């Protein structure tokens, strides 16, 4: 029974890790990082390491997400809708980087 739970958690973690790299929206990427931290905390409990699980839940799913979200605001990357943010796809080295990768707007 426990192995089934572990399988679900590991699959969720790997899918979220891929989603961090693939999602265009940076707010969603930071949320996916927190999901990876949460999955890790559950796995640490299953591996009989409660101290580490507590630390990972507090730091990875809590503090790290807050620091990254604060960074997004300071870097001007905090946008929820697609709007006027036409950024190139992050994983494909695009050949047409005609300044649209620039990240500052008034």
């Amino acid at each position, binding site marked *: 029974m426990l192995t089934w739970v572990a399988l679900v958690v590991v699959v969720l973690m790997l899918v979220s890790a891929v989603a961090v790299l693939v999602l265009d929206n940076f707010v969603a990427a930071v949320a996916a990082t927190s999901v990876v931290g949460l999955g890790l905390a559950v796995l640490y409990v299953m591996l009989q390491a*409660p101290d580490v699980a507590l630390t990972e839940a507090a730091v990875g799913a809590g503090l790290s997400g807050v620091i990254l979200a604060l960074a997004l*605001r300071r870097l001007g990357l905090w946008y929820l809708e697609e709007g006027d943010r036409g950024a190139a796809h992050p994983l494909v080295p695009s050949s047409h980087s005609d300044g649209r990768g620039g990240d500052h707007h008034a």
Partner: protein
Amino acid sequence: MRSIASLLFAGGLAFLLLALGAQLALGDPAMRVGAEYLRIAGPELGAANIVTAILAGYRGLDTLGELSILFAAATAAGLVLGRRRADAPRDPPGGLILRAGADLLFPLLVVVGIYIVAHGHLTPGGGFQGGVILAAAFFVAVLADPSRTLNHAAISWIEGLAGASFILIGIWALVEDGHFLAPLLGTGTMGQLLSAGTLPLLSVAIGLKVGSELAGLMADISDTEARDQ
């Protein structure tokens, strides 16, 4: 070209880790040092939480190194970010959910943080976990109302005093027992709050230092302006 090279690199890394891990005795580790610690940590230090006993007792010097790394990171981040101008605009205050939630959560988080720090040698917990929760408690209050800034001078004082007390306890152990950060003050009865010698004192010092450091770091990041004018 870069994609192919990156894929080869990641594939090679995965293969290397798989090959190394195939020789790892998964499920039956040869705990040569760990078994010894498990055997003697209870009787010798009187702490029920063996991980905290190793962290603050047997490997206290590593913990001191980690505190220095955190201090260096927080100081460097503060230096890189620089000061804010006094008249720069601040973030708008958070919405209703954030403000109401911060009012409810702040006392709960402070109590939970103090509990986890104080009971570090009995139940899962310790200085680091409690310190992170305390930092989060103070920072939630700042997030909800950014015009209420944290007092940087008070944070620096708490951080300095906590770090200094950690080192002073170690030096006191050096004077009394001949080894830096040796456990002192006897063991007491296992399971009581006041047991395990200097371990709770060290946990409190670690918790205060880590908490104030992380709170100051997040306040630094949130204090910077968005663009250089």
